[in-house]
C-alpha cells in the first residue's frame, strides 16, 4: 500500500500523464489484440481468405491505434503544455 502511495506521488508530479499514457497503452493492446485474435481465428477457418482478412485487420488496427494515440497526445500536452 505504501508502495502505491509513493508511486502515485511520483506520478502526480507529472500531472498523472504517465498513468494516462499507460492506460492508453492497455486500451490499444486490448483493442489490437482482439482484432488480431479474431482475424487469426477467421484465417484458420478459411485459409484462402487470408489475404482479404489481413488487409482489413491492418486497417482496423490502424484506426484503433489512432484512438489510443489521442490519449498519448493529451498526456504529452499535459507534460509539455
Amino acid at each position, binding site marked *: 500500500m505504501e508502495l502505491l502511495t509513493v508511486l502515485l506521488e511520483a506520478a502526480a508530479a507529472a500531472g498523472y500523464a504517465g498513468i494516462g499514457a499507460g492506460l492508453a497503452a492497455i486500451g490499444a493492446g486490448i483493442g489490437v489484440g482482439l482484432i488480431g485474435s479474431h482475424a487469426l481465428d477467421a484465417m484458420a477457418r478459411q485459409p484462402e481468405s487470408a489475404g482479404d482478412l489481413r488487409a482489413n485487420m491492418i486497417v482496423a488496427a*490502424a*484506426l484503433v491505434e*489512432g484512438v489510443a*494515440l489521442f490519449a*498519448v*497526445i493529451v498526456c504529452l500536452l499535459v*507534460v509539455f503544455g
Partner: protein
Amino acid sequence: MKITSNPIYRKASGRFFTLLTSAFLMLFSANLFASGGEEGGKFNAGEMIVHHISDAHSIHFFGHATLPLPCIVKTDKGIDVFMSSVFMDEHHEFSKSYTSTSTGNTYVLHHEKIYVVDGAHGTNMSHDAHIDPATPPVQPEHADSTIMEVGGELNAAAPVAEHKEEEFHGTPVLDFSITKSVLGMLMMLTLVVVLFVRMAKAYEKRKGQAPKGMQNLLEPLVLFIKDEVAIPALGKKRAQKFLPFLLTSFFFIWACNILGLLPFAGGFNITGTLSITLVLAGLVFIITSINGNAHYWGHIVWPPGVPMAIKFILVPIEILSVFIKPAVLMIRLTANINAGHIIILAFTSLIFIFGEKSTGAGFGVGVFSTAFMIFMYFIELLVAFLQAYVFTLLAALYFGDATQEHHHEEAHH
C-alpha cells in the same frame, strides 16, 4: 567491358536520375556525432526529444554542420526577410538577437520561435546563464549592442546552478519562414510532381508498350490506390473525380513519412507537425463538404430509420462528426508519426542516460538500444506506408459517403 552497355547510362534521363540519387545519398551520408540535448551539464532527454521532433529555422545535420534557412516575418512595422544564421553566435548556439535595418525590430530566437523584443530590455537567451528573477534587466547602456551575450555581470550575483527558465518578454510575430518542415514539404512535393509528370509523359510516348523503368515501380502503386481504395469506396463512375487528390495525398504523405525516417538527413518531421496535417485534413473536409449532396446533409440532420428519441442524441453527434472526422484524420497521422520518432529518440537517449552513469553501462545499453531501434525502424517503415494508406482510404470513404446516391437506402437494415 563496356560500362555504358547498361541502358541507364545511355539516356539522359537515366543519367540525370543517377546523378540525383547519388547527390542525395552523398548529401545525407555523414558520420554520427553526438549532438543536441547537452547543456554543459546533465543530459536532458525530454528536451532533446522535443527539440528533435519540433520544427526549426535551420537544418542541423551533425556536429556543427547547420544549414540556416530563410526567415520571413511580418510585424506591424513591415516584412523582414533574413537568414536564420544571423542568430548564430560563435558557439553555434542560436542566442544572438538581430536588429533589422528596414523595420527596426529586434528579433530573437526563443525555443525555435521568432519573437520581437524591445531593444532596451532584451533578455538573455543563452542556456548557460543563470538568471535570477530579481536581477534587473539589461542596463540601458547595452541597448545599442545587438549581441546579447552571456553577461558576466548577470552571473555575478547568482550562484551558477542548472538552467532556470527566465521570464521571457517577447511579442510573437507572423512567421512565414521557410522552416525545416516547409523545406521538406516543398522538396517532397517537387519529387512527387516531377516523378509523376515524367511518368505520365512516358505513358503518352509509349502508348500500348510495356512499362519501362520508373513506370514499373509506380504503376502497381497507382493501380493499388485506384483499385483497392478509390473504386471500392467511390464506385467506378465517381472514382475518377477524386483520384487525383487521393493519389497526391497518398504519395505525398508516404514520401514525407519516409523522409522523416532517413537517418542523418537533418531530422525532418514533416507529417509530424500539426500544421501540415491540419491542411491535409482541412482539404479533405473542404472536398467532402463541397461535394456533399442533399442526401448526405439530409442524413446528417435527419438520419433515416432512427426512432425519434434517439434522433435527439444522434443529430448533434452527426453534426459534430462532420468536423471531428477530419480532425481525427489529422491527429491520427500526426500522433502516429510523432510517436514513432519519439520512440526512436527515446531509445537513443537511453544510451546517453546510462552512459552518464558509467561508460560500460552506456555501451551495454547501446547494443541493446541500437538493436531495438533498428527493429522499431522497420515498424516505422510499415507505419509510414500504413498511415498514408489509412489517410487515403478514409478520405475516399468520406468522399464516397458524401456523394452517395439515393439507392443505397434499400441496403439499410
